[in-house]
């Protein structure tokens, strides 16, 4: 039961967080909301992921799987709240302007993200024998992400001023890179949430490309952006300037990502065509992909 100390850690973190903020800061900017929600939902969904210990869930196998898959989706959503909160924080510090973090549009997107955290998980479970209405809800909710998609495209047209870019160049580069990964992730998520496409991609490396590939890109870039931001506030000689590692990281991740997608499509085709096959055959056929990995 390794989960208990982990949960305890989150509890203490949450207690500390709310104790430091509640009543002390008025008119929370959106990233305080995001961090707060992230912590609370993380605690709930991490617990939920372990509900299988109770016979009530365990005895009903399909329900047990549904609840486990639900929790995976939602605790990733909670984690995203924490990470995107950080991205927002860094961005408003770079721009030296916290107004955007309190605006109407910003909160609209916060609530849209929350909708997907709460209800979007069910596209993980399209292929499980759950009742169709759960799958309908999932389909409808997932498609709201198109709004985020359009928003990102629109947002690319507006950018920072050259001076702001230069002063925080490393942090800014990482934020831009994370934008790319968010975009890639979203495109995949949108396509994979359409049941007919999900039918093929579920249970293949395409899922991995989405859940790990792009997410590694997003989380790492945002965390490195905040580190770079902190470093940029230090004396000049400590400021990170080398760009090679930045390109190496993003470049190799990109190759990894494309390979996973190719591999996944191959697995999908193989599985549907060889119901009695042995997985070893797929592996031998796929050796070139592994080597490229």
């Amino acid at each position, binding site marked *: 039961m390794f989960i208990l100390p982990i949960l305890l850690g989150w509890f203490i973190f949450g207690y500390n967080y709310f104790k430091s903020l509640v009543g002390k800061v008025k008119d929370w900017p959106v990233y305080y909301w995001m961090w707060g929600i992230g912590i609370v939902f993380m605690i709930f969904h991490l617990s939920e992921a372990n509900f299988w210990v109770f016979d009530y869930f365990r005895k009903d196998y399909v329900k047990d799987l549904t609840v486990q898959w639900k929790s995976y989706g939602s605790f990733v959503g909670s984690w995203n709240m924490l990470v995107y909160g950080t991205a927002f924080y860094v961005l408003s510090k770079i721009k030296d302007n916290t107004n955007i973090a309190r605006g109407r549009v910003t909160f609209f997107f916060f609530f849209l993200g929350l909708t997907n955290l709460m209800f979007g998980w069910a596209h993980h479970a399209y292929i499980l024998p759950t009742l169709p209405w759960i799958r309908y809800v999932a389909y409808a909710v997932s498609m709201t992400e198109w709004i985020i998609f359009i928003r990102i495209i629109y947002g690319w047209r507006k950018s920072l001023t050259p001076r702001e870019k230069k002063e925080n160049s490393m942090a800014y580069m990482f934020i831009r890179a994370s934008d790319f990964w968010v975009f890639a992730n979203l495109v995949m998520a949108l396509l994979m949430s359409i049941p007919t496409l999900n039918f093929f991609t579920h*249970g293949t490396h395409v899922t991995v490309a989405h859940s790990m590939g792009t997410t590694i890109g997003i989380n790492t870039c945002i965390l490195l952006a905040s580190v770079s931001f902190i470093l940029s506030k230090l004396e000049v000689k400590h400021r990170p300037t080398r760009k090679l590692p930045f390109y190496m990281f993003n470049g190799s991740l990109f190759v990894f990502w494309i390979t996973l997608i190719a591999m996944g499509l191959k697995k999908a085709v193989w599985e549907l065509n060889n119901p*009695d096959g042995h997985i070893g055959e797929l592996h031998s056929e796929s050796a070139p992909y592994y080597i490229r990995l």
Partner: protein
Amino acid sequence: MHKRIRQNKLTLMIFITVCAVYTVIVYSGKTASSAPYLSSQAMEGEKLWQDNNCASCHQIYGLGGYLGDDLTNVISNPHKGENYVKAFLNAGSKSMPKFNFTEEEKEQIVQFLSHVDWTGYYPNVDAELGKDGWVSIKYK
């Protein structure tokens, strides 16, 4: 300003309430599978499945490691089935470890996998793919 803060708080409350109701429905509602509850033997089998990390290499309904096969329907597969599974467990192969299960444990694992098989199909080869993006999956 105060109006905006109040609106945000209210919206959050509504979200949390709807989410709570939805969660309770998911927890207490039915599923589309006609399988009964797991038998105690099958539950023992599930425990062996977890304790031996079968899922790190094998999938059920497509979830799990990609080294081994998806085992959702291994029992009802006319070319595989119970005895095939039992034989596999203690024999191992190039890439699957050799286990030392007793007859009883092998039977429990088979009971578990039979139960899983009972709940549905994966891959759901007979599902109907609609033009509107919807998939009607076939239930057992």
